[in-house]
């Protein structure tokens, strides 16, 4: 006997506890099953690209902070790399090492937030989230030592970073490196063998290798599907070519793989940080000859980097003036949303939020 059912259409968001910001989905349910999903975005659109056309190259750094606000350092890094390529600036070695340290710390922080909120979407009453935020807090304190701000850093400048790390930074970093593996172990003990997490996340929201590549999805989501594509390894920027690290790859590409890949990447970032500390050498953090007002020649540049969410690149066009003629952001969060509908069709309501959380989008970056 089959019951006659009727689909129900519902607006999930923009104000909803687990849409990670102001994301709205027009979802059609049939009972508990999802029939259709249509993402509706733009609630946080601030026109960063237009604003960038009226600011000098240094001032745009403050705009990039606000795009992906849980990973400002990597945003800065991507933008600065693009400006350096455009203006032909050779950065100081110490500045580059410092910004690599900042970027890897930021990656740990971002992955911690992603995994914490993923478990929060599973309904874990905030406990793993708060454990993760506790670790992020230490990283933010280190950022405060570096540049006086915790989230909107604006730490990088064309040519390096604006200021050398203070003396108390290095002991704090070493303490963090010693403690963090134990903390990750704790999280793994709490979650990766947890039967409830396993049955909730395994074989849910599966992304196939080819679909994933074809939809331009990058970052941990792509690697969880089994594609070995990490720009730090394949197209090394900064001094990543001098560093050895391994890249965790998933097999199936479900939510659990994405969760695990992020956990493993946190460990790899710790390795990279240790090598950065070994390699860093004294010297100026920013070449003296780089002016405060950068004035690049005519041309365009696009330098993609591996941000915690995926491939992040700034396409800058210069007309020879003090501000970019066009500044386009290739935002990984936005493009990773492409296949959301295909991922959740036929799943239950509860899986919708878990899958959405496992893509790890940031609405500040989606809407810009």
């Amino acid at each position, binding site marked *: 006997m089959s019951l006659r059912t009727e689909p129900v259409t519902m607006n999930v968001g923009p104000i909803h506890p687990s849409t990670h910001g102001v994301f709205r989905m027009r979802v059609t349910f049939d009972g508990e099953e999802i029939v259709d999903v249509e993402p509706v975005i733009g609630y946080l659109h601030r026109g960063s690209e237009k604003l960038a056309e009226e600011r000098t190259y240094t*001032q745009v750094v*403050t705009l990039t902070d606000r795009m992906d606000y849980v990973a400002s350092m990597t945003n800065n890094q991507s933008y600065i790399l693009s400006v350096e390529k455009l203006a032909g600036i050779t950065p100081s070695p110490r500045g580059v090492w410092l910004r690599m340290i900042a970027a890897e710390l930021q990656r740990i922080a971002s992955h911690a937030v992603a995994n914490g909120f993923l478990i929060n979407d599973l309904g874990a009453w905030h406990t793993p989230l708060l454990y993760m935020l*506790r670790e992020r807090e230490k990283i933010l304190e280190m950022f405060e030592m570096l540049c*006086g701000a915790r989230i909107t850093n604006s730490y990088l400048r064309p040519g390096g970073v*604006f*200021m050398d790390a203070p003396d108390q930074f290095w002991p704090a970093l070493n303490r963090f490196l010693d403690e963090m593996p134990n903390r990750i172990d704790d999280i793994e003990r709490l979650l990766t063998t*947890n*039967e409830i997490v396993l049955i909730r996340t395994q074989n849910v929201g599966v992304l196939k290798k080819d679909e994933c590549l074809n939809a331009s999805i990058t970052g941990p989501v792509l690697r969880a599907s089994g594609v070995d594509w990490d720009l730090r390894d394949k197209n090394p920027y900064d001094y990543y070519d001098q560093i050895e690290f391994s890249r965790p790859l998933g097999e199936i590409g479900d939510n659990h793989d994405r969760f695990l890949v992020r956990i493993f990447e946190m460990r790899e970032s710790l390795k990279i940080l240790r090598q950065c500390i070994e390699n860093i050498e004294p010297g100026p953090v920013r070449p003296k000859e780089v002016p405060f007002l950068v004035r690049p020649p005519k041309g365009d540049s696009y330098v993609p980097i591996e941000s915690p969410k995926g491939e992040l690149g700034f396409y800058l066009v210069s007309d020879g003036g003090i501000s970019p003629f066009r500044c386009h952001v290739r935002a990984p969060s936005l493009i990773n949303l492409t296949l959301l509908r295909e991922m959740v069709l036929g799943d239950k309501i509860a899986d919708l939020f878990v899958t959405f959380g496992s893509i790890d989008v940031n609405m500040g970056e989606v809407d810009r």
Partner: protein
Amino acid sequence: MFGFGLIKGLFVTLKNLVGPTFTVQYPNKRVGLIKASKYYNKNPFSLFKSHPLEGFKAIVGQAVIKEFPDQSPRFRGQEFNWFEDRCTGCASCAKYCPLGIIEIVTHPGEKNIQEGTSYDIDVFDIDIGRCMFCGICVEACPFDALHMGSGFERAIEKRENLVISVDELRSAEKRPSTWFRPQMEKSSYEPRNEKIEDSHDVGRHEKPSKEELTKRWVNER
């Protein structure tokens, strides 16, 4: 066995139950006798004499003391610190501010000669309500006259009051942050505990004397 992962998870939370917390009781912390007497810098017995109420509260662990979270000296906070002696009124800060929230009105004067001519400041308004504390104005200041502050408790009731005027800047307590001022960092200066009144202490270079100025700007030209 089924359920083993759940039990492991239960023990992780149990470990954190007895472990330390990572939040602080800002701004008032409730403490016991030992910490309270340390805070008032007394021994526990004389605490009862000087602060009887706090002493009794401390017996049940309820004495109130101030507690602040740790703060880096580079913290980019509110209450901009401005040293008028160093300012020449060049308005670089106003030019480089991404949001254009600094307003400067000057007239030519004799008061603050740094290198060459100078202007006296009539208006120096900073609209803190729109400020995003990027610190580019501080970076742009050629004479180290403007510094970020170190405070963060400037919640007020009216939006108009968020505009800092020149008088406020003059009379404010000077606790400049060491952000973009490496010379202050070398002397291990802590904005939370120390004040700086003398404008000589904050600059990268000393204020030139009249003779030097004459030599540089009159004789060498």
